[in-house]
């Protein structure tokens, strides 16, 4: 059988459905959070961001929710399309201290026709 951790978490959804990708972050002092999309053979691409003093932010077909109490971030993609198939990463930044972008484990989103 497969060992946990050898493969990315995977989410499969039907085309046209909504998808929710979750992320648990580690640093309660993080000031800023970003979702990136990485398509096969390409570098990560910025999707949407949110400051720590907000709990929700909406973009075009995407919404990011931030729950600081449980240190949880989610990305909602509405009406998924084949082009949404990719690996999605959350990332956090702390402006003070190390001042570096820390990426979470990615989630592979597969859109079924």
């Amino acid at each position: 059988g497969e060992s946990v951790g050898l493969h990315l978490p995977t989410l499969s959804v039907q085309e046209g459905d909504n998808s929710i990708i979750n992320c648990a972050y580690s640093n309660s002092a993080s000031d800023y959070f970003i979702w990136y999309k990485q398509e096969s053979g390409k570098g990560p691409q910025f999707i949407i961001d949110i400051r720590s003093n907000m709990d929700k932010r909406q973009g075009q077909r995407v919404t990011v929710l931030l729950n600081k109490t449980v240190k949880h971030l989610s990305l909602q993609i509405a009406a998924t399309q084949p082009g949404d198939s990719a690996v999605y990463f959350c990332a956090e930044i702390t402006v003070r201290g190390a001042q570096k972008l820390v990426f979470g484990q990615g989630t592979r989103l597969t859109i079924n026709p």
Partner: protein
Amino acid sequence: DTAVSQTPKYLVTQMGNDKSIKCEQNLGHDTMYWYKQDSKKFLKIMFSYNNKELIINETVPNRFSPKSPDKAHLNLHINSLELGDSAVYFCASSHGLQGRLDNEQFFGPGTRLTVL
């Protein structure tokens, strides 16, 4: 009109060799970065440079030496390559320091390094 470009895209080499990866950005950014992405897709920063000065060095072996001849270029030289260096290396750039809010990073297409 590529914003952040890297060469080569693929690099296959033997253990013990020395190799370089080049990165160029035409966005007028002040800060450039190198990231390593392993086989599990885990992405971690290695270095960042702001105006040609080293800002972040994330406990990377000294076999890895970044070089920034000017603000638009950040090259990565790797000495004595090891099997564990096999990964995809991404260059990125942004306007200011990484810790600033609303400071989007733009990533290059990556260089897949395979050490045999």
